[in-house]
């Protein structure tokens, strides 16, 4: 019994010492509050200054910002943008920018896991596809009130605000536009010249170009240049969508004859050997590496990779919008910013996301990445108007689109699409069976 009492005494002491710590913290936090309130009754100029200084000091806010960057240059640039914002904003806002890997879309899942666990950032770089999941769990802050009051509101096309609203599945805005990436076709003019073809004007001509550009260039009987760099791994659904629409299909119903025909075209590129045999497992890194090494003559990506392409090839790389067949579509990659509901100073957070949408952050980021700006003022700058890759992007804007944003989209993109496509490419299932699976899994 004595031992039991001793144990209880030790526990009681431990708990009381913990309580003691809590008590002293409370007292410390109360003291400056009282001091701050005291001069409010006094109207002298000195006191006003002191008050405003104290208000500024009390307004000082540190917010965490998660972003991803496609390469180390972008990573450095983001840190520079944030540093400049921290130094120039007059509201005492400090943004702590933390880079996270994109990891083929796992970024959004990691962000969700963190937010649901009560952690994660105050602000984050965003993809529209993630919106329904986060809004269903009440994780995002509604931005309509802040946008209404924002002086630069009209610098962004009203249509973009509408797309942001649609993504959330309601008439509320949870996502702040930042920049877009419209997919187009990269090609090597020297290779086109070698095989004597022009830039494809139609979808059929594009398919023919894939065939003609596939060659044995050193005469050893083996193919060493493939016409097209196909992305069969995660993320490949974006260029794939252009083939489906090229035959007049759509994402509303993958099982129509037109959509199935588009899928057959896609599969034939692999089966006939016009794409590298590694295509089912090729992701972003592989298609870019294959294009840069000269193993492929064309590939599909956005302006995010244009700086690297020019660095590798100089003038021997150009771009054209994905050509029109019975239909025409290209993927509009979107990147936005969101503010989380848990953020304690949403006004400060909005000041940062608006800096990224129409301020210096917009201009510097789009200049560095080559992404299409959302700010009309920035779009009009010569640096964007005179760029051939930007030109291909802007031409594609009129028919660019996104995958339907449903609660099944993330799984569909990360596991269903790549595995179903590789089943079709390996001949395990037919084009029609593949499209039926894709339809069933997206709209279940």
């Amino acid at each position, binding site marked *: 019994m004595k*031992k039991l009492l001793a144990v209880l005494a030790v526990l009681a002491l431990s708990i009381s010492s913990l309580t003691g710590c809590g008590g002293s913290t409370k007292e410390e936090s109360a003291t400056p509050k009282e001091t701050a309130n005291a001069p409010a009754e006094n109207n002298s100029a000195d006191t006003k200054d002191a008050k405003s200084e104290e208000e500024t000091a009390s307004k000082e806010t540190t917010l965490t910002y998660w972003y991803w960057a496609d390469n180390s240059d972008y990573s450095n640039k983001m840190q520079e943008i944030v540093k400049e914002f921290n130094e120039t904003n007059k509201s005492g806002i400090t943004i702590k920018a933390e880079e996270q890997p994109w990891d083929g879309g*796992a970024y959004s*899942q990691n962000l969700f896991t963190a937010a649901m666990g009560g952690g994660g950032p105050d602000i984050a770089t965003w993809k529209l596809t993630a919106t329904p999941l986060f809004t269903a*769990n009440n994780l995002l802050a509604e931005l309509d009130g802040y946008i209404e009051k924002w002086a630069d509101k009209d610098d962004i096309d009203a249509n973009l605000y509408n797309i942001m609203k649609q993504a959330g599945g309601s008439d509320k805005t949870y996502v702040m536009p930042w920049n877009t990436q419209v997919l187009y076709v990269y090609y090597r003019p020297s290779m086109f010249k070698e095989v004597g073809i022009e830039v494809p004007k139609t979808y059929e001509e594009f398919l023919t170009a894939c065939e003609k550009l596939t060659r044995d260039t050193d005469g050893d009987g083996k193919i060493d240049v493939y016409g097209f760099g196909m992305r*069969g791994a995660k993320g490949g659904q974006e260029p794939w969508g252009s083939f489906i629409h090229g035959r007049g299909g759509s994402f509303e119903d993958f099982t129509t004859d037109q959509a199935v025909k588009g899928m057959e075209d896609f599969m034939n590129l692999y089966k006939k050997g016009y794409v590298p*045999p590694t295509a089912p*497992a090729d992701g972003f890194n*592989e298609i870019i590496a294959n294009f840069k090494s000269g193993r492929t003559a064309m590939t599909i990506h956005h302006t995010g990779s244009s700086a690297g392409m020019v660095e590798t090839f100089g003038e021997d790389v150009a771009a054209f919008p994905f050509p029109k067949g019975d239909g025409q579509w290209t993927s509009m990659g979107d990147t936005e910013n969101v503010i989380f509901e848990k953020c304690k100073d949403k006004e400060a957070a909005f000041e940062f996301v608006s800096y990224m949408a129409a301020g210096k952050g917009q201009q510097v980021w789009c200049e560095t990445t080559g992404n299409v700006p959302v700010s009309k003022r920035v779009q009009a700058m010569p640096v964007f108007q005179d760029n051939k890759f930007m030109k291909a992007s802007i031409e594609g804007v009129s028919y660019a689109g996104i995958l339907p944003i449903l609660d099944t989209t993330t799984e569909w993109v990360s596991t269903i699409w790549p595995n179903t496509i590789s089943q079709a490419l390996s001949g395990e299932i037919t084009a029609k069976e593949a499209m039926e699976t894709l339809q069933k899994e997206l709209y279940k």
Partner: protein
Amino acid sequence: MRSRKINITPYFLVAPAFLIMLGVVFVPVAKAILMSFQNYDLRRPNSLKFIGIGNFIEIFHDPLFWDAFVRTLLWVGFGVGLQFLFGFILALILNQKFSGRGIVRAVSLIPWCTPGVLIGLMWRWIYDGNYGVLNDILIRLHIIDEKVPFLAQTNTAFPSVIATIVWQGIPFFALMILAGLQGVSQEMYEAADVDGASRFQKLFKITVPSIKNTIFITLLLRIIWVANSVDLIMNMTEGGPAYSTQTLSIYIFNKANVLNMGYAAAISLILTLMLSLAAVPYLRKRFKEEKV
């Protein structure tokens, strides 16, 4: 009547460990079991509800589950079996006396010391169908004419990931078996030599019976670890192409990753039961030994 005296000191000493176990093992396990009976899909938070054995019924009608189930048996069977075979051979070699034995022993441990994520990335590049060193070596040796996209074909991807886990696990078996071999009395071998026993007779009549406990526990541990491993396959193939490398642990990861937690928890429970079955012979043996 004598009052019963309770000595609470042992309970007091065990309490911290017990509380930690409770927090990090028992509570999450209980939560996972509970989830497996719920429609716990965070993509549809409004439809979270208790569905009894609904997840298990769905699993038994899910062809991807059965594919992953069979693949897990092959993954463990070939993965652990070959690790044991080559690990045993390596241990027998390292148990011999030769110059530089210390260096060879240290170097042979490198695969085991390397993180699984790094191994996955490293072998992904070795197998690469465009620039991989394996294709280059095989072409130079005139074993193949064309480059093989090892990880992009359904018929080569799974053997490739199995080969990688075998490479990773050989040193563990070698290390454990080597430790066992060093405890075998030399006198038995000398006596066998006097009796004219052959090398194979000595191996199967002296060596193997002497280290059978080591073999048993090492096999058991590796079966559990390999069945649960995710890092290597995720980094090499993510379960593809065409689900050809999707084991149960990868399937669980993929389902949990898209936030279908109830379904993932139900498959986890099945995998746990499978692994418990593997542990039964070990536990029975231990209980028998304790009784003796």
